[in-house]
């Protein structure tokens, strides 16, 4: 069995002066006493550079740095840290914030060094399937503090003071949501974690659960205590089998360790969490639809009020927060609301995780303080566009968001400024689009998605998105008319105003924002029947270039007999006969067919 703990003692001159040699002997003695010799490794290191704190010792896993202690303290440290897995806080040198641990490991990598990880602080650092790893990084300490030192009202006041807002997209102040639910009197209340991450192009919730499931559990128990609930439910996508497995394991481990179940940590507070699987319906990310789905129905949103805080799951007061919101809770309790609210912008506090993907060199999860600009994320962290291509747009907020053009690159990210620019924060998808993509086609793609996912309950969304999609298809096929662009805008604004839930209210965003920022591309499609990115099949013109050797492969393959030419001579495509199927382009071995 490999050593589960490793103790590194600084062997620099200054620490030797502070009796580090004697301390090593004392540690060995203590380990022998508890029969831990083969479970704990000891090694010496060169000077760690914290000479004023000597003697310095690091216990891993967890990177707990001990300093300014004596031989007499060794038994206590071994007892507490190694046996009970509770670091002796008064000797811990580094009292800085939780997120810093991430940077000790990854900070010198450019991609990570420019981020600030709070919600994802443990992802990549701990073994997500081992509760001890989480505990060693002050896991469940926030819960212990809440249960022993804080009243429910005080917890809510702290969350309110932090300025944390819902990370699922809408940005409703979390503390107020908690307060509203706490205020209701009921025999049963529910706490729900919304892990039905359905936005195409977003994967931060999956990664957060896969990388650090215990923080979600801890956040939910704290909320349960604060609002007076005893039941929690994690509603998670069935498409994420690993995340499902890990959250289930975390719940079982937490129960075994006394952080869940009856009489948590001896406080008399009871809380249970169960996992419910979604079944692939995007609309179930909407809170009222999500609750109906948990109840075993078709997930169709209902009008609000009543809000879930008054009448939610099974008619009881219910608190729903997104995965990333939950991950922030333990940090706020531990590091304090004032620290948390010092990060970010005036109205949006803390950090936000983005799933950076698309035409960008470094793809992956990026967590940055609110107020970071789009340019910093895409160029400084993302490394810019690969292959010397031209940046065209960045899409934020998934199918509910919008496409922003280059002039918005210096927009500071927060809920308000993104909304002002015509997009939304959303759950955090961020797709970079370069010159090879057609904006009309992108808008069509998103609308196809929302149209398909519309639950069909309210008319504006069900019928309106369908009509908008028909118009977009018409435009991409070169059959658009002058009036179509205006019609799209009118219809889009109508759907936004009249739809029942967030899906319909935001479905036209991709179309409206692309018309606003890339109107010229729409006009080219309509007036000149041209797609500058060469994406819209029906608008392409195929030509044979001088690379043609006259092999006749295209002539044989063309289903419309549009290719003519004699063997070993340059061929020719008759654009009147061409049906733009692209077969000639595919069969040509000499790259002699040009699309334009």
């Amino acid at each position, binding site marked *: 069995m490999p050593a589960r703990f490793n103790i590194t003692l600084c062997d620099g001159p200054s620490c030797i002066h502070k009796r580090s040699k004697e301390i090593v002997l004392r540690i060995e003695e203590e380990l022998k006493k508890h029969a831990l010799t083969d479970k704990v490794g000891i090694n010496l290191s060169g000077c760690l550079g914290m000479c004023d704190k000597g003697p310095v010792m690091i216990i891993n896993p967890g990177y707990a740095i001990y300093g300014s202690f004596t031989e007499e303290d060794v038994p206590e440290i071994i007892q507490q840290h190694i046996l009970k897995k509770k670091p002796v806080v008064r000797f811990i040198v580094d009292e800085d914030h939780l997120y810093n641990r991430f940077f000790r490991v990854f900070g010198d990598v450019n991609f990570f060094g420019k981020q600030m990880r709070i919600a994802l602080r443990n992802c990549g650092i701990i073994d997500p399937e081992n509760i001890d790893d989480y505990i060693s990084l002050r896991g469940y300490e926030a819960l212990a503090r809440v249960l022993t030192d804080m009243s429910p009202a005080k917890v809510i006041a702290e969350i309110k003071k932090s300025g944390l807002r819902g990370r699922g997209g809408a940005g409703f102040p979390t503390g107020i949501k908690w307060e509203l639910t706490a205020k209701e009197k009921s025999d049963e209340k529910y706490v729900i974690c919304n892990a039905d991450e359905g936005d*195409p192009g977003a994967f931060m919730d999956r990664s957060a659960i896969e990388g650090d499931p215990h923080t979600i559990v801890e956040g939910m128990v704290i909320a349960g205590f604060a609002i007076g609930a005893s039941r929690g439910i994690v509603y998670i996508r069935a498409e994420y089998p690993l995340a499902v497995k890990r959250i289930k394991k975390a719940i079982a481990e937490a129960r075994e360790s006394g952080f869940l179940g009856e009489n948590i940590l001896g406080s008399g507070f009871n809380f249970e969490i169960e996992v419910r699987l979604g079944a692939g319906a995007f609309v179930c990310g909407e809170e009222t639809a999500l609750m109906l789905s948990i109840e075993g129905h078709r*997930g169709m949103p209902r009008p609000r009020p009543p809000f879930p805080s008054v009448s939610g799951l099974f008619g009881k007061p219910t608190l729903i927060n997104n995965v990333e919101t939950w991950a922030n809770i333990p940090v706020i309790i531990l590091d304090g609301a004032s620290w948390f609210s010092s990060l970010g912008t005036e109205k949006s506090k803390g950090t936000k995780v983005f799933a950076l993907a698309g035409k960008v060199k470094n*793809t992956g999860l990026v967590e940055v303080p609110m107020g970071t600009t789009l340019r910093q994320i895409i160029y400084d962290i993302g490394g810019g566009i690969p292959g010397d291509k031209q940046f065209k747009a960045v899409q934020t907020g998934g199918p509910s968001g919008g496409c922003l053009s280059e002039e918005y690159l210096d927009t500071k990210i927060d809920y308000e400024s993104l909304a002002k620019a015509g997009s939304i924060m959303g759950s955090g998808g961020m797709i970079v689009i370069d010159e090879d993509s057609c904006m009309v086609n992108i808008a069509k793609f998103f609308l196809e998605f929302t149209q398909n996912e519309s639950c069909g309950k309210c008319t504006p969304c069900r019928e309106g998105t369908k009509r908008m999609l028909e118009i977009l298809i018409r435009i991409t096929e070169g059959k658009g008319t002058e009036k179509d662009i205006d019609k799209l805008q009118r219809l889009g604004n109508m759907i936004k105003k009249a739809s029942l839930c967030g899906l319909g209210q935001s479905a036209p965003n991709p179309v409206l924002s692309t018309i606003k920022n890339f109107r010229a591309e729409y006009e080219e499609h309509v007036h000149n029947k041209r797609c500058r990115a060469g994406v819209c099949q029906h608008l392409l013109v195929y030509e044979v270039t001088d690379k043609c050797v006259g092999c006749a492969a295209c002539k044989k393959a063309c289903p419309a007999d549009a290719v003519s030419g004699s063997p070993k001579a340059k061929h020719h495509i008759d654009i009147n006969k061409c049906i733009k199927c692209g077969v000639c382009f595919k069969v040509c071995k000499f790259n002699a067919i040009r699309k334009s």
Partner: protein
Amino acid sequence: MATAEDKNINALKSFMQESKTKDHPDSQLISILHKAQELYGYISQEVMNEISKEMNIPTAHIWGVATFYHYFNLKPKGKHSISVCLGTACYVKGAEEILNTIREELKIDFGQTSEDNFFTLQEARCLGACGLAPVIMIDDKIYGSLTPKKVVEIIKSYKK
């Protein structure tokens, strides 16, 4: 000796009996449908009738729920299922071309099964592997950074 069929129905029945002991048993319907799909690979009319009888939920309601959620298959699937990710990142990186290649190669469209019952083609909303876009998933295995040529090779490797 119990046949595979008996074994499945018994497993489903004991799962339902356990569900009935929980609070709000009706709310377990989606979990039961998940279980049924796990056992049978799809949810047939007969299985819905069984669930209806055992749980005392009208079949019409079960049908409504099963058809609402994309995850549930109402028809049997082929030996392997290919899910083509049509998430935004994959789309931007050419998922449509990958999809068309598969359509041509197997001569099937979404929701269909190839004539030899070997492959079923499905659409996935987002597999969360955006960094590898474009991606497909065959059964539980993800294939990323695809080109039309690579896809054809991958499909052929399954037929061997």
